[in-house]
Protein backbone atom coordinates (compact mmCIF):
# COMPACT_ATOMS: atom_id res chain seq x y z
CA UNK A 1 0.00 0.00 0.00
CA UNK A 2 1.54 3.28 -1.03
CA UNK A 3 1.44 5.95 1.62
CA UNK A 4 0.22 9.43 1.04
CA UNK A 5 2.97 12.00 0.96
CA UNK A 6 2.58 14.98 3.24
CA UNK A 7 4.07 18.38 2.51
CA UNK A 8 3.54 20.19 5.77
CA UNK A 9 5.89 23.10 5.14
CA UNK A 10 4.91 23.84 1.56
CA UNK A 11 1.21 23.58 2.47
CA UNK A 12 1.77 25.96 5.36
CA UNK A 13 3.66 28.29 3.03
CA UNK A 14 0.67 28.43 0.67
CA UNK A 15 -1.61 29.17 3.64
CA UNK A 16 0.72 31.89 4.88
CA UNK A 17 0.80 33.45 1.41
CA UNK A 18 -2.97 33.40 1.34
CA UNK A 19 -3.58 35.17 4.61
CA UNK A 20 -0.72 37.64 4.09
CA UNK A 21 -2.49 38.67 0.88
CA UNK A 22 -5.61 39.22 2.98
CA UNK A 23 -3.68 41.55 5.24
CA UNK A 24 -2.04 43.55 2.49
CA UNK A 25 -5.35 43.89 0.66
CA UNK A 26 -7.17 45.20 3.66
CA UNK A 27 -4.62 47.58 5.07
CA UNK A 28 -7.26 48.78 7.52
CA UNK A 29 -6.34 45.85 9.77
CA UNK A 30 -2.74 47.06 10.07
CA UNK A 31 -3.85 50.68 10.36
CA UNK A 32 -6.43 49.97 13.08
CA UNK A 33 -3.96 47.86 14.97
CA UNK A 34 -1.23 50.51 14.90
CA UNK A 35 -3.24 53.70 15.12
CA UNK A 36 -4.82 53.08 18.54
CA UNK A 37 -1.53 52.34 20.31
CA UNK A 38 0.10 55.30 18.55
CA UNK A 39 -2.75 57.59 19.64
CA UNK A 40 -2.39 56.23 23.16
CA UNK A 41 1.34 56.86 23.05
CA UNK A 42 0.77 60.48 21.93
CA UNK A 43 -1.85 60.98 24.62
CA UNK A 44 0.26 59.59 27.41
CA UNK A 45 3.45 61.32 26.38
CA UNK A 46 2.07 64.77 25.54
CA UNK A 47 -1.02 64.98 27.80
CA UNK A 48 -0.69 62.80 30.90
CA UNK A 49 3.05 62.25 30.75
CA UNK A 50 3.99 65.50 32.44
CA UNK A 51 2.16 64.45 35.58
CA UNK A 52 3.52 60.93 35.75
CA UNK A 53 6.61 60.37 37.86
CA UNK A 54 8.50 57.36 36.56
CA UNK A 55 11.97 58.25 37.69
CA UNK A 56 13.17 58.27 34.08
CA UNK A 57 13.86 61.44 32.15
CA UNK A 58 12.28 60.17 28.94
CA UNK A 59 8.66 58.98 29.29
CA UNK A 60 8.54 57.57 25.73
CA UNK A 61 11.30 55.17 26.69
CA UNK A 62 9.30 54.14 29.75
CA UNK A 63 6.02 53.77 27.88
CA UNK A 64 7.04 52.01 24.66
CA UNK A 65 7.14 48.38 25.90
CA UNK A 66 3.57 48.58 27.22
CA UNK A 67 2.36 50.21 24.02
CA UNK A 68 3.87 47.38 21.99
CA UNK A 69 2.05 44.80 24.12
CA UNK A 70 -1.25 46.65 23.64
CA UNK A 71 -0.67 46.67 19.89
CA UNK A 72 -0.06 42.92 19.87
CA UNK A 73 -3.10 42.25 22.07
CA UNK A 74 -5.34 44.14 19.65
CA UNK A 75 -3.61 42.63 16.61
CA UNK A 76 -4.41 39.06 17.56
CA UNK A 77 -8.13 39.88 17.66
CA UNK A 78 -7.89 39.89 13.87
CA UNK A 79 -6.40 36.42 13.90
CA UNK A 80 -9.45 35.20 15.79
CA UNK A 81 -11.65 37.06 13.32
CA UNK A 82 -9.92 35.59 10.26
CA UNK A 83 -10.05 32.08 11.68
CA UNK A 84 -13.71 32.47 12.52
CA UNK A 85 -14.53 33.70 9.02
CA UNK A 86 -12.67 30.75 7.48
CA UNK A 87 -14.64 28.33 9.63
CA UNK A 88 -17.91 30.02 8.65
CA UNK A 89 -17.31 30.00 4.93
CA UNK A 90 -16.76 26.79 3.08
CA UNK A 91 -13.06 27.30 2.51
CA UNK A 92 -11.87 25.29 5.54
CA UNK A 93 -14.06 22.39 4.46
CA UNK A 94 -12.44 22.49 1.07
CA UNK A 95 -8.97 22.48 2.62
CA UNK A 96 -9.83 19.65 4.94
CA UNK A 97 -11.26 17.48 2.21
CA UNK A 98 -7.97 17.87 0.32
CA UNK A 99 -4.88 15.73 0.79
CA UNK A 100 -2.94 18.37 2.74
CA UNK A 101 -1.44 18.41 6.21
CA UNK A 102 -4.37 18.65 8.62
CA UNK A 103 -3.06 21.50 10.70
CA UNK A 104 -1.57 23.56 7.83
CA UNK A 105 -4.56 25.93 7.58
CA UNK A 106 -4.34 26.70 11.31
CA UNK A 107 -0.58 27.17 11.29
CA UNK A 108 -0.96 29.49 8.31
CA UNK A 109 -3.04 31.81 10.48
CA UNK A 110 -0.60 31.56 13.38
CA UNK A 111 2.38 32.50 11.21
CA UNK A 112 0.41 35.33 9.64
CA UNK A 113 -0.32 36.67 13.10
CA UNK A 114 3.39 36.62 13.86
CA UNK A 115 4.31 38.47 10.66
CA UNK A 116 1.53 41.06 10.81
CA UNK A 117 2.19 41.85 14.47
CA UNK A 118 5.88 42.22 13.68
CA UNK A 119 4.93 44.81 11.05
CA UNK A 120 2.78 46.76 13.54
CA UNK A 121 5.54 46.65 16.15
CA UNK A 122 8.08 48.04 13.69
CA UNK A 123 5.71 50.84 12.64
CA UNK A 124 5.09 51.82 16.27
CA UNK A 125 8.81 51.80 17.11
CA UNK A 126 9.45 54.10 14.13
CA UNK A 127 6.82 56.54 15.40
CA UNK A 128 8.32 56.33 18.89
CA UNK A 129 11.72 57.22 17.41
CA UNK A 130 10.21 60.37 15.94
CA UNK A 131 8.72 61.16 19.35
CA UNK A 132 12.13 60.98 20.96
CA UNK A 133 12.49 57.32 21.89
CA UNK A 134 16.17 56.42 22.19
CA UNK A 135 17.77 53.14 23.09
CA UNK A 136 21.30 52.23 24.01
CA UNK A 137 20.59 48.54 23.40
CA UNK A 138 22.97 46.50 21.30
CA UNK A 139 22.07 43.94 18.65
CA UNK A 140 21.80 41.10 21.18
CA UNK A 141 19.42 43.04 23.40
CA UNK A 142 17.26 43.95 20.42
CA UNK A 143 17.18 40.29 19.41
CA UNK A 144 16.13 39.38 22.93
CA UNK A 145 13.34 41.99 22.77
CA UNK A 146 12.23 40.60 19.41
CA UNK A 147 12.25 37.11 20.87
CA UNK A 148 10.12 38.06 23.89
CA UNK A 149 7.66 39.94 21.68
CA UNK A 150 7.45 36.97 19.30
CA UNK A 151 6.77 34.58 22.18
CA UNK A 152 4.18 36.96 23.61
CA UNK A 153 2.53 37.16 20.17
CA UNK A 154 2.49 33.38 19.84
CA UNK A 155 1.03 32.93 23.31
CA UNK A 156 -1.78 35.39 22.61
CA UNK A 157 -2.27 34.03 19.08
CA UNK A 158 -3.04 30.57 20.45
CA UNK A 159 -5.54 32.14 22.82
CA UNK A 160 -7.02 33.91 19.80
CA UNK A 161 -7.17 30.56 18.02
CA UNK A 162 -9.29 29.11 20.80
CA UNK A 163 -11.65 32.07 20.52
CA UNK A 164 -11.78 31.98 16.72
CA UNK A 165 -12.40 28.23 16.63
CA UNK A 166 -15.06 28.05 19.31
CA UNK A 167 -16.90 31.36 18.92
CA UNK A 168 -20.45 31.29 17.67
CA UNK A 169 -20.54 34.87 16.41
CA UNK A 170 -18.11 37.37 14.93
CA UNK A 171 -18.44 39.58 18.00
CA UNK A 172 -17.61 36.67 20.24
CA UNK A 173 -14.52 35.90 18.21
CA UNK A 174 -13.12 39.37 18.88
CA UNK A 175 -14.45 40.09 22.36
CA UNK A 176 -11.88 38.02 24.24
CA UNK A 177 -9.14 40.49 23.35
CA UNK A 178 -10.56 43.40 25.40
CA UNK A 179 -9.32 42.13 28.76
CA UNK A 180 -5.96 41.41 27.15
CA UNK A 181 -5.74 44.96 25.85
CA UNK A 182 -6.70 46.21 29.30
CA UNK A 183 -4.12 44.18 31.19
CA UNK A 184 -1.18 46.54 30.52
CA UNK A 185 -3.04 49.37 32.29
CA UNK A 186 -2.91 47.46 35.56
CA UNK A 187 0.81 46.85 35.31
CA UNK A 188 3.98 48.87 35.37
CA UNK A 189 3.50 49.71 31.68
CA UNK A 190 2.32 53.28 32.25
CA UNK A 191 3.12 54.12 35.85
CA UNK A 192 5.38 52.51 38.45
CA UNK A 193 3.41 50.06 40.60
CA UNK A 194 4.61 51.76 43.81
CA UNK A 195 1.87 54.40 43.44
CA UNK A 196 -0.97 51.86 43.42
CA UNK A 197 -3.12 50.73 46.42
CA UNK A 198 -1.80 47.49 47.87
CA UNK A 199 -4.34 45.05 46.38
CA UNK A 200 -4.03 46.50 42.89
CA UNK A 201 -0.29 46.63 43.33
CA UNK A 202 -0.14 42.98 44.27
CA UNK A 203 -2.08 42.07 41.14
CA UNK A 204 -0.04 44.40 38.96
CA UNK A 205 3.29 43.08 40.15
CA UNK A 206 2.36 39.45 39.70
CA UNK A 207 0.63 39.46 36.35
CA UNK A 208 2.53 38.56 33.18
CA UNK A 209 2.53 42.00 31.57
CA UNK A 210 4.63 43.62 34.30
CA UNK A 211 7.50 41.15 34.04
CA UNK A 212 7.41 41.30 30.23
CA UNK A 213 7.35 45.11 30.26
CA UNK A 214 10.14 45.31 32.84
CA UNK A 215 12.29 42.85 30.91
CA UNK A 216 11.88 44.72 27.62
CA UNK A 217 12.41 48.08 29.31
CA UNK A 218 15.63 46.91 30.93
CA UNK A 219 16.89 45.42 27.66
CA UNK A 220 16.15 48.61 25.72
CA UNK A 221 17.76 50.91 28.27
CA UNK A 222 20.84 48.74 28.60
CA UNK A 223 20.24 47.98 32.28
CA UNK A 224 20.65 44.63 34.02
CA UNK A 225 17.57 42.53 33.29
CA UNK A 226 17.61 40.41 36.42
CA UNK A 227 14.94 37.80 36.96
CA UNK A 228 12.25 39.59 34.99
CA UNK A 229 13.27 38.06 31.71
CA UNK A 230 12.96 34.52 33.09
CA UNK A 231 9.59 35.25 34.66
CA UNK A 232 8.50 36.86 31.39
CA UNK A 233 9.64 33.84 29.37
CA UNK A 234 8.01 31.43 31.77
CA UNK A 235 4.69 33.29 31.46
CA UNK A 236 4.86 33.41 27.67
CA UNK A 237 5.85 29.77 27.21
CA UNK A 238 3.37 28.61 29.84
CA UNK A 239 0.42 30.49 28.35
CA UNK A 240 1.46 29.39 24.88
CA UNK A 241 1.57 25.69 25.76
CA UNK A 242 -1.75 25.67 27.61
CA UNK A 243 -3.49 27.72 24.90
CA UNK A 244 -1.95 25.51 22.20
CA UNK A 245 -3.36 22.36 23.78
CA UNK A 246 -6.84 23.85 24.04
CA UNK A 247 -6.73 25.41 20.57
CA UNK A 248 -5.66 22.10 19.02
CA UNK A 249 -8.45 20.33 20.85
CA UNK A 250 -10.96 22.88 19.56
CA UNK A 251 -9.51 22.53 16.06
CA UNK A 252 -9.72 18.74 16.03
CA UNK A 253 -13.31 18.98 17.21
CA UNK A 254 -14.18 21.21 14.30
CA UNK A 255 -12.43 19.36 11.48
Amino acid sequence: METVKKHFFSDMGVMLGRSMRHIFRSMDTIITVTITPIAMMLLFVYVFGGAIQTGTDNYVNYLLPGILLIAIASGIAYTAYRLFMDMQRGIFERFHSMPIARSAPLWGHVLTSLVSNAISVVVIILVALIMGFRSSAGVLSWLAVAGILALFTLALTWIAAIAGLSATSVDGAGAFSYPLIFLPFISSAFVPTESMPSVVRAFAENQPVTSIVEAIRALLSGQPVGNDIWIALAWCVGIMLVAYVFAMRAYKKRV
Partner: protein
Amino acid sequence: MQNQAIQVKGLQKSYTKLHVLKGVDFEVEKGSIFALLGSNGAGKTTIVKILTTLLKHDGGTAAVNGFDVASRPDHVRQSISLTGQFAAVDEILTGRENLIMIAKLRHLNNPRQVADDLLNRFGLTDAADRRVSTYSGGMRRRLDIAMSLVGKPQLIFLDEPTTGLDPEGRIEVWKTVKELANGGTTVFLTTQYLEEAEQLADRIAILHEGKIIANGTLAELKKLFPPAKVEYVEKQPTLEEIFLAIIGKKEEK
Protein backbone atom coordinates in the same frame (compact mmCIF):
# COMPACT_ATOMS: atom_id res chain seq x y z
CA MET B 1 -10.66 -3.03 -10.36
CA GLN B 2 -14.13 -2.59 -9.02
CA ASN B 3 -16.75 -0.54 -10.69
CA GLN B 4 -18.12 1.39 -7.76
CA ALA B 5 -16.93 4.89 -6.88
CA ILE B 6 -18.91 4.92 -3.65
CA GLN B 7 -20.20 2.05 -1.54
CA VAL B 8 -22.28 2.85 1.52
CA LYS B 9 -23.74 0.15 3.78
CA GLY B 10 -25.87 0.65 6.86
CA LEU B 11 -24.53 4.16 7.47
CA GLN B 12 -25.57 5.60 10.83
CA LYS B 13 -25.03 9.04 12.27
CA SER B 14 -26.48 10.79 15.28
CA TYR B 15 -25.95 14.27 16.58
CA THR B 16 -26.51 14.89 20.27
CA LYS B 17 -30.27 14.55 20.10
CA LEU B 18 -30.96 13.81 16.49
CA HIS B 19 -30.70 10.45 14.77
CA VAL B 20 -30.03 11.75 11.26
CA LEU B 21 -28.96 8.66 9.33
CA LYS B 22 -30.64 5.40 10.27
CA GLY B 23 -28.92 2.87 8.06
CA VAL B 24 -28.29 4.35 4.65
CA ASP B 25 -27.32 2.04 1.76
CA PHE B 26 -26.39 2.95 -1.79
CA GLU B 27 -23.72 2.55 -4.43
CA VAL B 28 -22.49 4.93 -7.07
CA GLU B 29 -21.10 3.59 -10.30
CA LYS B 30 -17.88 5.04 -11.69
CA GLY B 31 -18.40 7.72 -14.32
CA SER B 32 -22.05 8.31 -13.51
CA ILE B 33 -23.99 11.23 -12.11
CA PHE B 34 -25.71 10.27 -8.89
CA ALA B 35 -28.26 12.60 -7.34
CA LEU B 36 -29.23 12.41 -3.69
CA LEU B 37 -32.58 14.01 -3.27
CA GLY B 38 -34.15 15.11 -0.03
CA SER B 39 -35.78 17.98 1.75
CA ASN B 40 -33.91 20.42 3.97
CA GLY B 41 -32.50 18.72 7.03
CA ALA B 42 -32.89 15.21 5.60
CA GLY B 43 -29.19 14.52 6.12
CA LYS B 44 -27.83 15.04 2.61
CA THR B 45 -25.00 17.26 3.77
CA THR B 46 -24.23 14.83 6.59
CA ILE B 47 -23.71 12.07 4.02
CA VAL B 48 -21.48 14.34 1.93
CA LYS B 49 -19.41 15.26 4.97
CA ILE B 50 -18.93 11.63 5.94
CA LEU B 51 -17.91 10.64 2.42
CA THR B 52 -15.47 13.55 2.16
CA THR B 53 -13.86 12.65 5.53
CA LEU B 54 -15.06 15.82 7.27
CA LEU B 55 -17.28 13.95 9.69
CA LYS B 56 -17.03 10.56 11.38
CA HIS B 57 -19.96 8.20 11.16
CA ASP B 58 -21.27 6.13 14.07
CA GLY B 59 -22.07 2.89 12.32
CA GLY B 60 -22.01 1.04 9.03
CA THR B 61 -19.34 1.36 6.36
CA ALA B 62 -18.54 3.84 3.64
CA ALA B 63 -15.89 3.41 0.97
CA VAL B 64 -14.83 5.91 -1.64
CA ASN B 65 -12.86 4.67 -4.63
CA GLY B 66 -12.29 1.47 -2.69
CA PHE B 67 -10.85 3.19 0.39
CA ASP B 68 -12.66 3.07 3.70
CA VAL B 69 -13.39 6.65 4.76
CA ALA B 70 -12.78 5.97 8.43
CA SER B 71 -9.54 4.01 8.26
CA ARG B 72 -7.91 5.51 5.17
CA PRO B 73 -9.07 9.12 4.96
CA ASP B 74 -5.81 10.29 3.36
CA HIS B 75 -6.34 8.00 0.39
CA VAL B 76 -9.91 9.12 0.04
CA ARG B 77 -8.86 12.78 0.00
CA GLN B 78 -6.39 12.08 -2.80
CA SER B 79 -9.09 11.09 -5.22
CA ILE B 80 -12.00 13.38 -4.40
CA SER B 81 -12.98 17.00 -4.46
CA LEU B 82 -15.71 18.77 -2.55
CA THR B 83 -17.78 21.72 -3.60
CA GLY B 84 -19.70 22.44 -0.44
CA GLN B 85 -23.02 24.10 0.06
CA PHE B 86 -21.47 27.51 0.59
CA ALA B 87 -19.08 28.56 -2.15
CA ALA B 88 -15.65 27.58 -0.85
CA VAL B 89 -13.78 30.38 -2.55
CA ASP B 90 -11.53 33.01 -1.07
CA GLU B 91 -13.30 36.32 -1.58
CA ILE B 92 -10.26 38.50 -1.11
CA LEU B 93 -8.10 36.67 -3.61
CA THR B 94 -8.66 36.90 -7.36
CA GLY B 95 -10.11 33.99 -9.32
CA ARG B 96 -6.69 33.15 -10.67
CA GLU B 97 -5.07 33.25 -7.23
CA ASN B 98 -7.75 30.94 -5.86
CA LEU B 99 -7.01 28.35 -8.54
CA ILE B 100 -3.24 28.68 -8.17
CA MET B 101 -3.58 28.23 -4.41
CA ILE B 102 -5.45 24.95 -4.83
CA ALA B 103 -3.03 23.77 -7.53
CA LYS B 104 -0.12 24.42 -5.16
CA LEU B 105 -1.86 22.58 -2.36
CA ARG B 106 -2.29 19.65 -4.72
CA HIS B 107 1.42 19.92 -5.57
CA LEU B 108 0.89 20.15 -9.30
CA ASN B 109 3.83 20.99 -11.50
CA ASN B 110 2.60 24.09 -13.23
CA PRO B 111 -0.02 25.84 -11.06
CA ARG B 112 -0.20 28.90 -13.31
CA GLN B 113 -0.92 26.83 -16.42
CA VAL B 114 -3.52 24.74 -14.59
CA ALA B 115 -5.23 27.94 -13.46
CA ASP B 116 -5.19 29.45 -16.96
CA ASP B 117 -6.72 26.32 -18.48
CA LEU B 118 -9.54 26.17 -15.95
CA LEU B 119 -10.26 29.91 -16.18
CA ASN B 120 -10.56 29.49 -19.91
CA ARG B 121 -12.74 26.40 -19.66
CA PHE B 122 -15.14 28.08 -17.23
CA GLY B 123 -15.34 31.38 -19.08
CA LEU B 124 -13.64 33.28 -16.29
CA THR B 125 -10.59 34.53 -18.16
CA ASP B 126 -11.84 38.12 -18.31
CA ALA B 127 -12.57 38.15 -14.60
CA ALA B 128 -9.43 36.22 -13.67
CA ASP B 129 -7.62 39.10 -12.02
CA ARG B 130 -10.59 40.58 -10.23
CA ARG B 131 -11.27 39.84 -6.59
CA VAL B 132 -13.87 37.13 -6.13
CA SER B 133 -15.92 39.47 -3.93
CA THR B 134 -16.89 41.30 -7.16
CA TYR B 135 -18.16 38.09 -8.86
CA SER B 136 -21.83 37.27 -9.40
CA GLY B 137 -23.34 34.22 -7.72
CA GLY B 138 -23.06 32.17 -10.90
CA MET B 139 -19.43 33.13 -11.50
CA ARG B 140 -18.58 32.30 -7.91
CA ARG B 141 -20.13 28.86 -8.26
CA ARG B 142 -18.25 28.29 -11.53
CA LEU B 143 -15.00 29.22 -9.86
CA ASP B 144 -15.93 26.99 -6.94
CA ILE B 145 -16.45 24.04 -9.27
CA ALA B 146 -13.30 24.93 -11.24
CA MET B 147 -11.34 24.81 -7.96
CA SER B 148 -12.73 21.34 -7.35
CA LEU B 149 -11.43 20.19 -10.72
CA VAL B 150 -7.83 21.19 -10.07
CA GLY B 151 -5.74 18.03 -10.22
CA LYS B 152 -8.48 16.10 -12.06
CA PRO B 153 -10.06 14.18 -9.17
CA GLN B 154 -11.94 11.01 -10.15
CA LEU B 155 -14.93 11.83 -8.02
CA ILE B 156 -16.46 15.17 -7.24
CA PHE B 157 -19.05 16.00 -4.62
CA LEU B 158 -21.43 18.85 -5.29
CA ASP B 159 -23.55 19.71 -2.28
CA GLU B 160 -26.59 21.67 -3.48
CA PRO B 161 -24.62 23.34 -6.23
CA THR B 162 -27.48 25.50 -7.48
CA THR B 163 -29.10 26.60 -4.23
CA GLY B 164 -29.28 30.38 -4.23
CA LEU B 165 -28.48 30.78 -7.91
CA ASP B 166 -30.64 32.57 -10.44
CA PRO B 167 -32.01 30.51 -13.37
CA GLU B 168 -29.13 31.53 -15.64
CA GLY B 169 -26.56 30.57 -13.06
CA ARG B 170 -28.32 27.27 -12.54
CA ILE B 171 -28.21 26.42 -16.22
CA GLU B 172 -24.52 27.29 -16.32
CA VAL B 173 -23.89 24.84 -13.50
CA TRP B 174 -25.97 22.12 -15.13
CA LYS B 175 -23.97 22.48 -18.33
CA THR B 176 -20.75 22.17 -16.35
CA VAL B 177 -21.91 19.06 -14.55
CA LYS B 178 -22.93 17.37 -17.81
CA GLU B 179 -19.55 18.18 -19.33
CA LEU B 180 -17.81 16.74 -16.31
CA ALA B 181 -19.66 13.48 -16.57
CA ASN B 182 -18.97 13.31 -20.29
CA GLY B 183 -15.29 13.60 -19.43
CA GLY B 184 -15.52 10.49 -17.23
CA THR B 185 -15.64 12.14 -13.80
CA THR B 186 -18.03 10.61 -11.31
CA VAL B 187 -20.38 13.24 -9.88
CA PHE B 188 -22.18 12.91 -6.56
CA LEU B 189 -24.78 15.60 -6.32
CA THR B 190 -27.25 16.57 -3.64
CA THR B 191 -30.22 18.71 -4.41
CA GLN B 192 -33.64 19.64 -3.17
CA TYR B 193 -34.83 20.49 -6.67
CA LEU B 194 -36.54 17.57 -8.33
CA GLU B 195 -36.05 19.10 -11.74
CA GLU B 196 -32.31 19.25 -11.21
CA ALA B 197 -32.10 15.54 -10.47
CA GLU B 198 -34.29 14.84 -13.48
CA GLN B 199 -32.09 16.95 -15.74
CA LEU B 200 -28.74 15.61 -14.68
CA ALA B 201 -28.71 12.33 -12.90
CA ASP B 202 -28.18 8.80 -14.20
CA ARG B 203 -29.43 7.49 -10.90
CA ILE B 204 -31.52 9.17 -8.25
CA ALA B 205 -31.81 8.21 -4.60
CA ILE B 206 -34.34 9.77 -2.27
CA LEU B 207 -33.31 10.27 1.33
CA HIS B 208 -36.20 10.57 3.73
CA GLU B 209 -36.25 10.30 7.52
CA GLY B 210 -32.77 8.85 7.68
CA LYS B 211 -33.15 6.16 5.03
CA ILE B 212 -32.99 5.80 1.28
CA ILE B 213 -36.61 5.16 0.38
CA ALA B 214 -36.15 4.94 -3.38
CA ASN B 215 -33.15 4.41 -5.63
CA GLY B 216 -33.06 3.98 -9.38
CA THR B 217 -32.96 5.59 -12.78
CA LEU B 218 -35.59 8.16 -13.58
CA ALA B 219 -37.43 5.57 -15.68
CA GLU B 220 -37.37 3.09 -12.80
CA LEU B 221 -38.65 5.65 -10.35
CA LYS B 222 -41.43 6.57 -12.72
CA LYS B 223 -42.49 2.91 -12.81
CA LEU B 224 -43.09 3.04 -9.08
CA PHE B 225 -46.10 5.14 -9.77
CA PRO B 226 -49.35 3.95 -11.30
CA PRO B 227 -49.15 3.91 -15.11
CA ALA B 228 -49.58 7.30 -16.67
CA LYS B 229 -53.07 8.19 -17.59
CA VAL B 230 -53.50 10.22 -20.73
CA GLU B 231 -55.07 13.56 -20.00
CA TYR B 232 -55.29 16.66 -22.04
CA VAL B 233 -53.99 19.62 -20.13
CA GLU B 234 -53.28 22.99 -21.63
CA LYS B 235 -49.55 23.56 -21.28
CA GLN B 236 -48.97 26.93 -19.72
CA PRO B 237 -45.45 28.26 -19.86
CA THR B 238 -43.87 28.44 -16.42
CA LEU B 239 -42.63 31.77 -15.21
CA GLU B 240 -39.12 30.37 -15.49
CA GLU B 241 -39.62 29.54 -19.16
CA ILE B 242 -40.97 33.01 -19.77
CA PHE B 243 -38.07 34.58 -17.92
CA LEU B 244 -35.52 32.59 -19.86
CA ALA B 245 -37.24 33.22 -23.19
CA ILE B 246 -37.28 36.95 -22.56
CA ILE B 247 -33.64 37.18 -21.61
CA GLY B 248 -32.88 35.03 -24.66
CA LYS B 249 -30.88 32.34 -23.05
CA LYS B 250 -33.22 29.48 -23.31
CA GLU B 251 -31.66 26.32 -22.14
CA GLU B 252 -30.74 23.84 -24.86
CA LYS B 253 -32.30 20.48 -24.26
